[in-house]
């Protein structure tokens, strides 16, 4: 068994003339939490989509839990899950109905006890029987997290997992995800713009820019290498280096 839960080699995705992801290679160790960082359009969501099999790459190889995701995604999908602000749940169904449907899709045997567990952990019990469409953005984010944890995934891909949550609820959800990761030894890969979240949750960071990996390492190693005191400053250094490079190119 490989030490890596996720292994990406030479991943390239081209949309017409746009090169969204350019020969990216990285690995995520089993039981770790890794962040994909980068500005808008850096290629994070595209990379996550390929990892889930939602998007077919132009080139490259992606292995999740030892399975080639392009050839055998259905072997590994029951052991994975994800959440993203780009997707939603049926709005007229209640939270309980939505979660029941997905619990059945993931083949859960005892649906009710699992919903009760998640209801407590994510504090969604109060609106469990309300239509999903009537919930606030923050409440929807918590329901989406509940959906992503239904099958107790071994690999959890999170795209902006605490977007729309107030600081208190965001902090609670991060705590809950950290606990889940520790107790289940799951592998978490998250794309986020929240640097405090990344510092608190992640043991590894991959920095992307214009579809390429420009740096990676532990948060501490990146802070040291950039001579910065927090990841927000590192992020700005990476993002602005591009602006500086473009300015230099323009000057010459």
């Amino acid at each position: 068994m490989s030490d890596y839960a996720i292994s990406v080699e030479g991943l390239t995705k081209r949309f017409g003339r746009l090169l969204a992801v350019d020969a990216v290679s990285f690995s995520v160790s089993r039981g770790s939490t890794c962040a994909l960082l980068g500005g808008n359009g850096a290629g994070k969501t595209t990379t996550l989509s390929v990892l889930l099999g939602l998007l077919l790459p132009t080139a490259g190889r992606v292995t999740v839990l030892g399975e080639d995701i392009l050839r055998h995604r259905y072997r590994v999908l029951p052991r994975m899950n994800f959440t993203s602000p780009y997707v939603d749940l049926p709005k007229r169904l209640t939270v309980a109905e939505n979660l029941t449907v997905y619990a059945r899709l993931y083949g859960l045997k005892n649906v009710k006890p699992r919903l009760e567990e998640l209801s407590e952990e994510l504090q969604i019990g109060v609106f469990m029987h309300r239509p999903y469409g009537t919930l606030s953005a923050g409440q929807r984010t918590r329901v989406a997290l509940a959906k992503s944890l239904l099958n107790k995934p071994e690999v959890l891909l999170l795209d902006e997992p605490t977007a729309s949550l107030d600081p208190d609820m965001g902090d609670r959800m991060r705590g809950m995800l950290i606990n889940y990761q520790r107790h289940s030894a799951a592998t978490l890969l998250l794309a986020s713009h929240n640097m405090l979240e990344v510092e608190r949750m992640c043991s590894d960071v991959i920095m992307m820019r214009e579809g390429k990996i420009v740096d990676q390492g532990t948060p501490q190693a990146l802070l040291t290498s950039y001579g910065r005191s927090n990841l927000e400053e590192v992020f700005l250094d990476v993002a602005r280096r591009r602006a500086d490079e473009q300015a230099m190119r323009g000057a010459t």
Partner: protein
Amino acid sequence: MSAVVFSPRRIGAMVLRHVYLMRKSWPRILELAYYPSVQMILWGFIAKFLTTNSSWVAQAPGLLIASVLLWDILFRSQLGVSLTFFEEMYSRNLGHLFVSPLRSYELVCSKLVISLLRTLIGVGAAALLAIPLYHYSIFSMGLPLIAFFANLMMMGWAIGLMVSALVLRWGLGAENLAWALIFAFAPVSGVYYPINVLPGWLQPLALALPSSHVFEGMRAVMIEHQFRTDQLLSALLLNLIYLAAGIVIFLAAFHAARKRGLLLYIGE
């Protein structure tokens, strides 16, 4: 690790999703039966009038009512597939569905089951209403009705899958096709008149449609009191081709959507 390649439980989950939706909204149930009933009532009166003015209709007074009910089976079964697919797009749910273990062909199967339920509710109500209103029961057709029903359902599914594929490819801008496309088949299907009424050059096209064989078969049962096995076999054979084409086109559109990254972003 092996994976279950065909799971009735997953199909059941998708059916449950739409049952939840239907059972909480009585206007939705009512709407399913409303249009078939209004159509049936309208054509019932037309039939009543024509019975006394047309020797052809007078041969079988229930002919036009049977025609409109069978046409609605085709129309509703097509809508049942395409509208339930649009539901997933409206709710931006495709991304979640396709990262779950649900397979694309299981999604297709679930749409067919939901379409059957919706058609039975909608057309069933209109068929029952015709009994007290016009003293005509389509069920008096007996076993041939099952053959007609099955064939029209299959053709509706095939068109529904093709419409869903177009919408998956072109987005919800192509949604109107769900309502409009089927009507292009009506004039050449011989719903209310025999195929030989059509101009010669149009008749081969009509005979390439499963629906025209069903309606010819229906008239044979009602007017000549004979069951045309040849018409049934032609409809069945054509339907198998149509349904296979519908499935292939839908799966190809799904594959193209995975290439273009549409599954994550497609929606309202």
